[in-house]
């Protein structure tokens, strides 16, 4: 992967934003209706809209021959994590919500996670995909680098 030029990086970023905007509004409508009268089918469709946004993002990456930027990864993980926490907390606090939405939402979150993992494995292979999230290894290698650098100073 060659780093993008200034204009290409801007073009890619704008396209990614456009794709997510187009996926987000239908997803919001579907989730809103799914939590109300619609029920499980519409919640599934909401997750499908989110996944469509993700697939569009992957296609954009392929067109520009790049991967996800660290900011995009961070933002994605934060939104996914926040959604998951909100879902767990609401399910614990509100019994009717849990009774109504627990199954479709948990399936949705699992499928979304599975699709991301599937993408990572097919894109990088199992080992590299795991290494990308191996915080302990990063932490240790960071420690090793620090001790080496202090040794050099001594």
């Amino acid at each position, binding site marked *: 992967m060659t780093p993008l030029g*200034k*204009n*290409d990086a*801007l*073009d890619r*970023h*704008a*396209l990614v*934003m*456009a*794709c997510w*905007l*187009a*996926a987000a*509004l*239908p997803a*919001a*409508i579907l989730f*809103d*209706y799914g939590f*109300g*009268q*619609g029920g499980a089918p519409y919640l599934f469709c909401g997750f499908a809209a989110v996944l469509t946004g993700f697939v569009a993002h992957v296609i954009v990456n392929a067109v520009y021959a790049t991967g996800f930027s660290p900011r995009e990864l961070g933002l994605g993980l934060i939104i996914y994590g926040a959604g998951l926490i909100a879902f767990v907390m609401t399910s614990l606090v509100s019994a009717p919500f849990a009774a109504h939405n627990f199954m479709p939402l948990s399936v949705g979150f699992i499928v979304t996670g599975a699709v991301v993992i599937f993408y990572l494995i097919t894109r990088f292979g199992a080992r590299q995909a795991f290494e990308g999230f191996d915080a302990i290894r990063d932490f240790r290698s960071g420690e090793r680098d620090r001790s080496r650098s202090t040794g050099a100073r001594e």
Partner: protein
Amino acid sequence: MTPLLVSTLGIIAVFGLYLATISGRQAQQASDFVDGGQALPPWVVIFAGAGIALASLGLADHLALLATFGLQYNQVAVGLIVVALCAALTQKRIWLAARLTDLRTLGDLLGDYFGSTTLRIFMLVVLFLFSIPFAAMCLAQAGALVGAASGADVPPGLAIWAIAFALFVSSVIGGWRGIAYVVAAQSLLVIVLVMFFGGFTGFTVEKLAFAAGGIWTSAGILPDKIPGVIQFTAGIGKAPPIGGIWTAFAGLTFALSLAGIAISPGFSFLGITSKPHRAFAFSQVWMIAGVTAGALMLVGPVLAAEIASGESLTAFMSRLATIDQMAGVGFAVLLVGSALIAIAFFAGSGACVCTIELTSRYLVPGMDPRTIRFAARVALAAVYAAVAVIASYAPLSATIFSSLTLSLSVQLLPAVLGLCWVRWISRSGVLTGLIVGTLFVVFTESFGLILFERLFVELPWGRWPLSMHSAGWGLIANFAACLLVSLFTRSDAGRDRRDRLHEAFEESEPARLGSPAATTAKWSLTLLWAFFALGPGAILGNTFFSEPIFAGTVVAPGVPSLLIWQVLFWFVGIFIVWWLAYRGRLSVIDDLPRCRIKLVPDPNPLFEPITTPWIARLLNRVTGR
């Protein structure tokens, strides 16, 4: 629903502002402000092209007319394929001519190619119509929609000024690149929402009106049939056609007027300032002819039937809001977003083209890049102020003026065809055609009729006489005059200059339509398609699938025969555009042009005036005092 609607529109405005800011920050040179460095990415052309075609129709108007006239008006969706065909014929050659000559606008190209200042002025008039009355009409519509959706919590006047301000700030920060990003992103959103609401309405609304009884039009209007090939009536306002105004000829000529989008100054500026490879072809085939025409053709009737059963667009929006508030907001965003595309694009492109063609060329020649950027910002401010004032205080005038826009824009077709393909079309021919065509357009549209009848006497015809759109009247007269005059003046003084450009075309990107038989097949198929899809042959679609000619019986296909006919010819239309754009290489750019040519040699100030004499005299009169 008001807070939710305002928040959603606010998010879209902030999104536009963000795109404009990042684009403005990364602009490498001040001169990039007006043309995006002539390197807009392909995806912008792909999405914006489709969005502009959709927005020029006016989505809210389209749905309202579909609800009023039924499937006879759905012919207009098939007509979008004509936009794609016209773009396939002209967009690549205009781009190539701009790269070969280092010119940046269609007005400059036509002016230099034909050596005519009158053509430049005509282009500026068309540009003015697009960027002020047309944009003002869309802005007034957007304001009214926000007002209706919020139950008058947000007054239309406030909505108009807020929208104009948000779009102006985005444009003034991001320049042409920022405008193009915003338009492309909104186009993608609108196209996705059109398809989404087709499905959502189908699944959530109980007893879908289209499935239950079709589109309930008012008495005397045929809901699922074209009311004849042509009707010999005096026109709207005098004696409207029986069964509805959308006869086969009305559909065909309206589709021809839509070709005015493809050769409009703004749309061609978008193409010229891009760096496409296959983007033109993809945009024309899959986005305009495919997705946009298909979505309008299939989703339009479903939504229109619901609108017709609930009396109005606003009633349908409220009905959606009772099902789910967010859905109501989404539908409002769809309609407002479609108007926003037209406002942002036509006002933005108008200001940029005006800076290049008028300010830099005639008013303040020799500006440095920073001054050009400043001039463009002033032009943007002036355009947006004019648009907002007209939308607030004179929306009816904006509607009357904008009815001329597409019809006058398409009158440039002979000139553009001359530039791109037909070197023997001469300046005299083009100008004669333009004058005659413009007169025909003006006197078959409400603008000319109102003006003439108020000032002089009542005319015996109304708007669109013989159920033929003004663009059709204008084009018939225009082509007849242009071809006739060109026959006698084809070897005039400008022939050398025209030949130079066409030889450069042949050297850089020769047309590859294949063997003579393949070429004949391509154009014959296109004409046959036009005859059956939009022309007199479309009348067969009224009963072709419900009362098959040879079966001698009536069958029930489940949907109106006309809709099946339209869908069939939509598929054939996509195939034809694909064949021409990809296989015929009409829209695929294989190589960048290697040579440069000069259409007009630099004037020698000792012997020739730099400015056109009559403009110089006019300027002297003003500045000399």
